[in-house]
């Protein structure tokens, strides 16, 4: 067989999920769907406003996952989306933006982030305020981000991306100086740290539909609906699998392992 063994059902499931998403996007259309309110995203504009009032900076951090490693790249993509949004807000409202780039395998995000921020400032007609060296510092170690918190004392710290144990260190460092904090990651083990130390948190999958939420684009929202449909299917499979295994039937387990 041309499909690698053990990945047959996975492959078919992927095709099915995408097919359902395509139906929702291009046939059903997304105009009839709405996406629930995400307070953690709504509060970002308020945080930038507070930064303007207090004449302090906004720090936006996309973590160290980078774009080259498959398991971390989606969260970094989501982080870049938020970065573009935050840069647009700081450009429009007049706050200073600092987007430290952390090096733990994520240096390739530097040029992408630089272009995103420049674009955002250009779109708001504020390109003369764009200063790559000051706005996008390359901070190769965790302690340098903590030092940034202490030195700059920003009004807001937004962290959306992929993080390891630096999630706790950074959230605490910025929390101590009283910055409003929004944290979001797909790393299961770091979510509790953000939940504990940040004012607002995006839990796991909430990180991904940010662009749909911000843009309100019906097509993007339609993909979230498709995703939710498969959550129900997954839930049904879990219940069915639990019942079958409880009665000693391994059929579903073996089928999904094909």
């Amino acid at each position, binding site marked *: 067989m041309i499909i690698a063994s053990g990945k047959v059902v996975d492959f078919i499931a992927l095709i099915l999920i995408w097919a359902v998403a395509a139906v929702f996007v291009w046939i059903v259309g997304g105009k009839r769907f709405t996406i629930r309110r995400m307070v953690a995203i709504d509060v970002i504009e308020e945080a930038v406003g507070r930064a303007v009032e207090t004449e302090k900076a906004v720090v936006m951090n996309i973590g160290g996952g980078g774009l080259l490693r498959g398991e971390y790249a989606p969260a970094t993509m989501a982080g870049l989306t938020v970065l573009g949004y935050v840069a647009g807000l700081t450009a429009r409202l007049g706050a200073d933006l600092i987007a430290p780039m952390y090096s733990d395998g994520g240096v390739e995000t530097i040029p992408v982030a630089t272009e995103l921020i420049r674009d955002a400032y250009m779109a708001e007609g504020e390109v003369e305020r764009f200063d790559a060296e000051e706005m996008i510092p390359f901070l190769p170690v965790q302690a340098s981000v903590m030092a940034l918190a202490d030195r700059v004392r920003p009004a807001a710290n937004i962290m959306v991306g992929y993080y390891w144990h630096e999630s706790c260190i950074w959230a605490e460092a910025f929390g101590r100086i009283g910055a409003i904090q929004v944290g979001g990651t797909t790393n299961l083990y770091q979510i509790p740290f953000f939940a504990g130390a940040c004012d607002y948190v995006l839990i*796991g999958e909430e990180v991904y539909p940010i662009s749909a939420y911000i843009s309100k684009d019906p097509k993007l929202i339609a993909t979230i609906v498709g995703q939710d449909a498969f959550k129900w299917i997954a839930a049904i499979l879990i219940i069915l699998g639990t019942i079958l295994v409880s009665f000693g039937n391994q059929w579903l387990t073996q089928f999904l392992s094909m």
Partner: protein
Amino acid sequence: MSTKLVRKTVPLIITFLVGLLMIGQWFLKIPSLNELATSVQQWGIIIAAFAMGLGSVNIIIRNVHRIQKREGTDWLYAIWLLAIFFLFAIVGIGFGSASSQYRYIFNTILQPLSATMYPATLFFLVSAIYRTFKTRTVEGGLFVIVGAIILVANAPVMAATFPFLVSVKSWIMDVELTAAYRAILLGIGLGAIMLGFRVIFGLETTHLGREEET
């Protein structure tokens, strides 16, 4: 070529092709596809190397500016940072990153400093726990109760005195926590699959910058 073609259309086409290539390489047993995918992944490493160069230039420029401004005591740290930066660069390029000279400065400077950061997490954790335990919401209250049980059950003296706490902790960790983690993991997996769909089929373009043509 129009700006839109260069900034939007070409990246979207490349994303579509590379996205399908990577999916094909993961699921299908086609040797030529695997070789091509490996090559593309190696290009990624080269791009990252260029970005590292960009980051290094950023470090030099920022710290030279800090030294020129001489504000507060920051500029003294900037001098120190640049000195160490060039020390590592010169030794690394001059003798090679596998040389005993480079290993010496790596093992005696960078390694201990990096290792120090990990235990430092403990103090931040304690501080985060303290702030969390002050929370006055229902969710915060539940967080405190569960956290307190786990903390107490992990202390050997408490576990020996109140053995039932170990059972409660195990139940929380094995049943409640695992169930919640798996639910979140399921959502993350489906979310990532759908993000892949949006990126590969050009629906998600925010990472490519502004929409309008310049």
